[in-house]
């Protein structure tokens, strides 16, 4: 049985690691120094708290302890003429208490981690490591990368931040929209990786989703006036609300149309919808807000048949206007199928240059099936299966293909669409468009 105080250390670690690293990075001007110091402080906490009990402010205790430990260590190292340690000590001495508009240090750190001079893989890894407190093995596991590869990626990225002089600050107003978009993209990427693991047997990596939502909530608290920040949080909450309904008892994928809506997490739905309404009131729509609004329309429907498809389609038209792209066009085609019929949707899908994307073939297969073109549907299902590594998705596609009527396959004859119109991707896994 875990000692309660040790569980407390773990909880404080989870909640406060990012803040502690962020504060100490500002103090010492160096990420490695900050990380080492915070690790030291948590080691000390694990030794002391079980006997002495929790200090009144655990986070404050960690930050103070880490700061003192780091200064001790840096003094020892600078006594041996370590230039790096000297620089960090001087930085700590000269660091003003707070300058200019007060920004949370975590926000600075987030912008540093998601700096456009770093590759996307490095941005994601740094964000999870420094702000989420995930260990290198955890991150490597989540992204199916060998541990040494992930360790090297982190070392290289931190080295670039230090050597290239990537600043530790929230960008100026003029640069903010572009830089914020990069931060939101990283959070959304973490969420997506958790929501539909790109490969492997586990459909959902709940911990990555939880981490992305935690980061989304943090951003929403720190930047409450940025509607896209709120939009992204709403989108993640509404998507997350369907997690339980999205997989059957055997772990198989369940489409939005077939989900047991009683399993949706009502609290997350309510919170997400509330945020969508807040966005609507502001009237500054952006891609995340519109996607959240689409998700909210689905959340409104008591069953699939009651879905407001015209509203969904209107929102997709708006999304195409603000962020046009083939993935958005593909998702819009799903709504077109519901409003104007599968033939109209098939014509749109045929014109999209997305051959490597499994979802295009899955949607095409379903549209063909609904048009009675079952032989072509079978080929399209196979094309989709060949293009995804996710076991649950493959399983789902194989079963859909197996359900095609043998008569239709043999005769290659046109059959009228079935009585029940199903949308294969009414709940498409959100992907960066």
């Amino acid at each position, binding site marked *: 049985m875990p000692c309660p105080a040790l569980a407390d250390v773990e909880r404080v670690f989870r909640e406060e690691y990012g803040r502690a690293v962020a504060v100490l990075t500002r103090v010492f001007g160096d990420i490695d120094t900050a990380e080492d110091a915070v690790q030291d402080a948590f080691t000390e906490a694990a030794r002391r708290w079980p006997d002495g009990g929790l200090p009144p402010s655990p986070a404050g205790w960690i930050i103070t302890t880490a700061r003192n430990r780091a200064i001790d260590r840096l003094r020892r190292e600078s006594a041996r003429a370590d*230039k790096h340690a000297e620089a960090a000590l001087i930085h700590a001495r000269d660091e003003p208490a707070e300058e200019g508009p007060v920004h949370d240090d975590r926000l600075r750190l987030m912008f540093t981690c998601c700096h456009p*001079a770093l590759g996307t893989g490095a941005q994601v890894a740094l964000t999870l490591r420094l702000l989420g407190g995930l260990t290198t093995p955890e991150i490597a596991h989540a992204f199916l990368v060998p541990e040494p590869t992930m360790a090297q990626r982190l070392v290289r990225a931190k080295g670039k931040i230090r050597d*290239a*002089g990537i*600043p530790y600050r929230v960008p100026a107003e003029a640069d903010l929209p572009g830089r914020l978009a990069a931060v939101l993209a990283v959070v959304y990427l973490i969420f997506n990786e958790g929501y539909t693991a790109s490969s492997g047997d586990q459909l959902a990596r709940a911990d990555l989703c939880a981490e992305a939502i935690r980061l989304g909530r943090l951003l929403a608290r720190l930047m409450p006036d940025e509607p896209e920040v709120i939009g992204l949080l709403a989108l993640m909450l509404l998507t997350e609300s369907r997690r339980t309904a999205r997989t059957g008892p055997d772990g198989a994928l369940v489409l939005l149309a077939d989900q047991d809506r009683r399993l949706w997490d009502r609290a997350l739905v309510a919170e997400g919808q509330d945020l969508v309404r807040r966005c609507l009131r502001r009237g500054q729509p952006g891609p995340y807000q519109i996607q959240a609004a689409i998700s909210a329309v689905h959340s409104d429907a008591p069953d699939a048949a009651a879905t407001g498809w015209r509203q969904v389609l209107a929102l997709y038209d708006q999304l195409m206007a603000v962020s046009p792209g083939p993935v958005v066009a593909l998702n819009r085609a799903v709504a077109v199928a519901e409003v104007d019929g599968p033939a109209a949707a098939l014509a749109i899908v045929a014109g999209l240059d997305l051959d490597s994307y499994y979802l295009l073939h899955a949607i095409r297969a379903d549209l063909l099936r609904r048009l009675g073109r079952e032989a072509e549907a079978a080929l399209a299902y196979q094309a989709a299966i060949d293009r995804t590594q996710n076991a649950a998705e493959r399983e789902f596609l194989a079963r859909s293909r197996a359900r095609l009527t043998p008569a239709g396959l043999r005769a290659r004859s046109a059959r009228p669409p079935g009585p029940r119109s199903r949308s294969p991707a009414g709940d498409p896994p959100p992907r960066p468009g």
Partner: protein
Amino acid sequence: MKQYLLSIYHPDQPVPDPEVMEKIQQDVTAVNEELQAAGAWVFAGGLYPSTTATVLRVRDGDVLVTDGPFIEGKEHVGGFWIIKVPDLDAALEWGRKATRACTVPVEVRPFREDSQA
């Protein structure tokens, strides 16, 4: 203050038309003047084409001389700036102006602090 090398990567072919070249010259001069006015200018220069390069390397204790360039490719460094600014964001801001002016890619690289004479 940190120093950064801004390298200009020129394609070897085709050489721009004279009137295009003239516009590039003007724009690059404007960036130079702006750098100097901002106190960020350290050094800058344009290079002759890579066909004029000569490579030296030590082989068995002797220095071997060969016709260059060192890296065979379709693009080569055609010129560079060395600038002095507070951080990478400031360097990238000059890099943006530089690439617009010379119309080809610009690579920004930090100098080692312990290497500057």
